[in-house]
Every structure is written in C-alpha cells, then in structure tokens.
C-alpha cells in the first residue's frame, strides 16, 4: 500500500480489480455487436447484388493493344460517341500515356451511355467524379462501363491509376449536353469540347 501524500502520483489499477465474469461478459457483448454489424453490412451488399441494384463492371473482352490503331472498333475514325439503333450511346476511347483519345467527348443527357475503353500501353484508370463510374483500363482488355446522366454537366475525367511520369497531367473531359442539342452535333463536334 502506498502511503498517503499531499500530491499522490497516479498509480495503475492492480490486476483483478474487474471480476473475471464481468470481463468475459463485456468481451462477448462487444463481439456480438461487431459480428452483428458485419452480418447486417454483408446482408445489405448481398441482397442489393441479388436484386440487381449492385453490379461491378465485369466485362471480359480481349483486344490486341498493338493493332488498336490499325483495325477493329478502336481505329481513329470510330472513336468518340456513336448513337446505336436502339437510341443508346456508345463512347469509344483509347487511354495512352498521357491522355485519353478523344480528349473530350460529348454525350446526350437522359440516354443510356456505354463507355468502351482500351489501353494502348500500360494500365490506366477511368473515373467520372460524382458517379459510380470507376474502372481500370488494362492493356489487352476492353473496359466497358454503363452510365446514365440525368442532366447536362461537364465532368473531368482523370486517370486514377499511376501510369508514368506524366500521370498527373492525364485528364480528359466528358461533356453531357441536352439530347436535342446533341442531335444537332456532327460526329467531329461530338469529340470536341470547343465552343
């Protein structure tokens, strides 16, 4: 026992001051809380996945990165936004050190949009802020992501996978324009954000 003093220093509590059964009850209670939280979170994720509300982009499609510019859907004349027979839009882009080609694409609002990207060199990232569009662009594979834009807005589109010394400058743009205005754009204007 420590003798009383005018300015007693803090002393650690001796072991065994909390009864063993109280410690066990406390640990079991906290474990129950943690496991319950994990079960609830997993149940939410699995349920929304089964109901179709949650789907990661999972397209598996190969493409030869060495011949992107020579043949196939990623030749220069086929890049940019195309309107499909069903009225949806398909945007084809190439990611390369250190830019996206085209540098800016225009897409119509209120229309299902499918982005298809291929890399010409290394792994790049495809991200549209404030949307769930977020994917890697791996050389040799076609990245396909679907989106729907309700209103006109300009999106910055940064590469978010480190791809080399110029990675920080690898930005492009997606410009969502009203459907009526998009219909009046020529194919060249769809691949440019110039006013």
């Amino acid at each position, binding site marked *: 026992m420590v003798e009383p003093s005018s300015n007693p220093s803090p002393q650690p509590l001796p072991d065994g001051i909390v009864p063993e059964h*109280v410690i066990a009850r406390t640990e079991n209670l906290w474990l129950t809380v943690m496991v319950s939280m994990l079960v609830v979170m997993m149940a939410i994720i699995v349920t929304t996945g089964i109901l179709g509300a949650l789907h990661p982009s999972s397209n598996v499609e190969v493409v030869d990165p060495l011949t992107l510019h020579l043949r196939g859907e990623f030749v220069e004349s086929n890049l940019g936004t195309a309107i499909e027979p069903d009225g949806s839009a398909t945007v084809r882009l190439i990611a390369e050190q250190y830019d996206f080609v085209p540098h800016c694409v225009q897409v119509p609002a209120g229309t299902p949009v499918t982005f298809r990207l291929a890399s010409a060199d290394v792994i790049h990232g495809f991200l549209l802020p404030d949307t769930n569009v977020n994917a890697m662009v791996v050389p040799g594979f076609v990245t396909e992501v679907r989106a729907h834009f309700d209103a006109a807005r300009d999106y910055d589109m940064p590469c978010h996978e480190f791809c080399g010394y110029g990675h920080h400058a690898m930005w492009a743009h997606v410009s969502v324009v009203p459907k009526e205005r998009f219909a009046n754009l020529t194919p060249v204007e769809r691949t440019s954000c110039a006013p």
Partner: protein
Amino acid sequence: MRRDEHQTAVQALSNGPIGAFVIAGIAVGLLFAGWLAFYFLLFLPRGTVG
C-alpha cells in the same frame, strides 16, 4: 493506492467499463450510420455501372 481509492475503483468497475462502452458505442454507431448513409443515399442512387 490508498484503500479508499481502491474501493472506489472496485465499486466503479464492478459492472464492467460502462463509460468505455458508451464512448465506443457512440463512435462505432456513428461509423455504422455513416456507412449506411453513404450506401443508401449516395452509392445506390448513382446507379449500376456493370
């Protein structure tokens, strides 16, 4: 430790660390509420991309 301090500690902890539970509960509760809010109010409304 003086005898009266020891008795006070024994009495305070006889039912377990209630105060620590309250603080940890608030912290974890806020974290869990934040996860739910992000998931249902931000992530799901943005729509599926696959």
